[in-house]
């Protein structure tokens, strides 16, 4: 029976070749895996696997280079866009992306992020905003919401002493070097499809040398938030989305 079913013409969905078969180390229900898949499918569909060079951050996705089956470099914490600049400047014809968390991109790497975008480096920045430092065990991130608990804001983020969450994506959208800036999520099939469309557009713009494209993905961190995957997605919808509304922030004129 099953032998009859497994025919190319019956195939409706398969894992993209741009993802390796390595078992991902991400926690159950974490958005990183889905975000990886959307980006990998885009690289696959555009047929650019052999022309793509990725940059992994320091954060939970530090091992992204085991999962994306493209040439990749591991950057120091926060320096991914500088590393990507180095790559893109010597290989202007390749597709270059960074994949970074909020601590990496919007705290320690803020200068590198802003300046790469301001120069309009022709790269794609995939920005996973989960409002927390996942890898190091749930400390406060630049994007942690006011009042949100973390291991370094155990009574909730007190903006008077700990500062305010940074909407770096909105800042980047104001820079002349950025071309396409959008905020997405991957927590439902519909949202994941939208995020994929955004990633695809961004990669296509890179081919046209239009400037920096940034796709923020507001994501969950069940472990750091100390919730089940389902609870975390609900919490994200109710708390993260009002502060970080989904949708395009800067679209090509």
């Amino acid at each position, binding site marked *: 029976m099953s032998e009859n079913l497994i025919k190319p013409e019956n195939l409706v969905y398969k894992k993209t070749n741009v993802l390796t078969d390595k078992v991902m180390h991400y926690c159950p229900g974490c958005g990183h895996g889905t975000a990886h898949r959307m980006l990998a499918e885009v690289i696959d569909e555009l047929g650019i696997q052999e022309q793509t060079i990725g940059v992994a951050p320091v954060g939970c996705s530090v091992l992204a280079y085991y999962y994306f*089956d*493209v040439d990749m470099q591991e950057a120091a914490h926060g320096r991914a866009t*500088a590393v990507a600049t180095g790559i893109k400047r010597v290989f202007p014809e390749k597709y270059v992306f960074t994949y970074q968390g909020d601590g990496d991109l919007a705290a320690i790497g803020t*200068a590198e992020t802003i300046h790469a975008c301001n120069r309009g480096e022709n790269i794609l920045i995939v920005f996973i905003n989960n409002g927390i430092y996942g890898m190091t065990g749930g400390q406060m991130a630049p994007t942690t919401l006011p009042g949100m608990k973390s291991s370094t804001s155990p009574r909730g983020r007190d903006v008077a002493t700990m500062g305010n969450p940074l909407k770096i994506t909105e800042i980047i959208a104001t820079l002349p070097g950025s071309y396409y800036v959008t905020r997405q999520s991957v927590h439902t099939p519909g949202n994941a499809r939208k995020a994929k469309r955004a990633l695809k557009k961004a990669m296509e713009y890179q081919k046209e040398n239009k400037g920096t494209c940034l796709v923020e993905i507001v994501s969950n961190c069940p472990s750091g938030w100390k919730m089940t995957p389902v609870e975390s997605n609900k919490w994200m919808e109710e708390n993260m989305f009002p502060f970080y509304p989904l949708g395009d922030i800067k679209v090509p004129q």
Partner: protein
Amino acid sequence: MKELRLMKGNEALAEAAIRAGTDAYFGYPITPQSEIIEYLMHENPYERTGMVVLQAESEVAAINMVYGAAACGKRTMTSSSSPGISLKQEGLSYIAGAELPCIVVNIVRGGPGLGTIQPSQSDYFQAVKGGGHGDYKLIVLAPATVQETVDFVKLGYELAFKYRNTVMILSDGIIGQMMEKVELFEQMPRENKDYEWATVGKKPGKDSVIVTSLYLKSEDQEKLNFRLQAKYREIEKAEVRFETIMTEDAEYLFTAFGSCARITRKAMEMARAKGIKVGLVRPISLYPFPVKIFEELAPKVKGILTVEMNAGQMVEDVRLAVNGKTKVEHYGRFGGIIPSPEEILNALEQKIIGG
């Protein structure tokens, strides 16, 4: 075509960078080395050879751009001066861990802190002992002339790619700023090689290339360290460079590197004129340090004076090499003060001959 020119050290270095077929230079202005990026921007090497020159937002960004381009197998360079080199230490450690080739130039100024823009040699420790985290080494070349500055760019790429290692050209504000006659080597082509370790895009049927310094398993991390240490031993065997002057009959020795060696040579000549038999050992590669020549000469002399524009850094390596076989003293001026030949000769008489 080879060409004779009268050039400032920093400008000659920049011209050598273009001629050595550099693919990309990333830098950030700081005195006394800003002429390097200024010269490059002025020359517009993108038109001459296709070389990329980019002013980064910081030295941190610049060294990470170097990482990215070097990991693509390109000839990549950055330059700075002491405070900026401190900022590059994180990147240098990552470059060491990922085993990438590049050239980093330090036109040293006096420190600590913001210090002075005047010349110094106080970054010796930082250059030869590490500076960033982890067990790693830079190949460190110390030019004493504008000519050597130029030649070390070419040599620097050869060594960097041979060993997949950072080569640091450790110069100072004197050599960077002074004008000298220099013979420039001919324009070399930019290489367009695909190295198997470089990220150039995944080849069909082959594994993707990963450039990383992360090895989560201790056994793997130790393996990397064994590999690095084996490489450093090889470098110590094959890449020692030094110069000896009038050491054959010497009863005493001076040792100094870079610009300080030139001043010390003058002191040596003055001493010889007074009948003091003194020679000079000038380490050119500071790492690997020329241990053997000191082992060889130490039993033959009554004492060695190291002369440095710092509070006594290379003297530690000299003492290790000499291993108690003769007296080793240090004479230094720092904070941007350049010692005179007279005071160096005086120090020899006081600390070594009289002491």
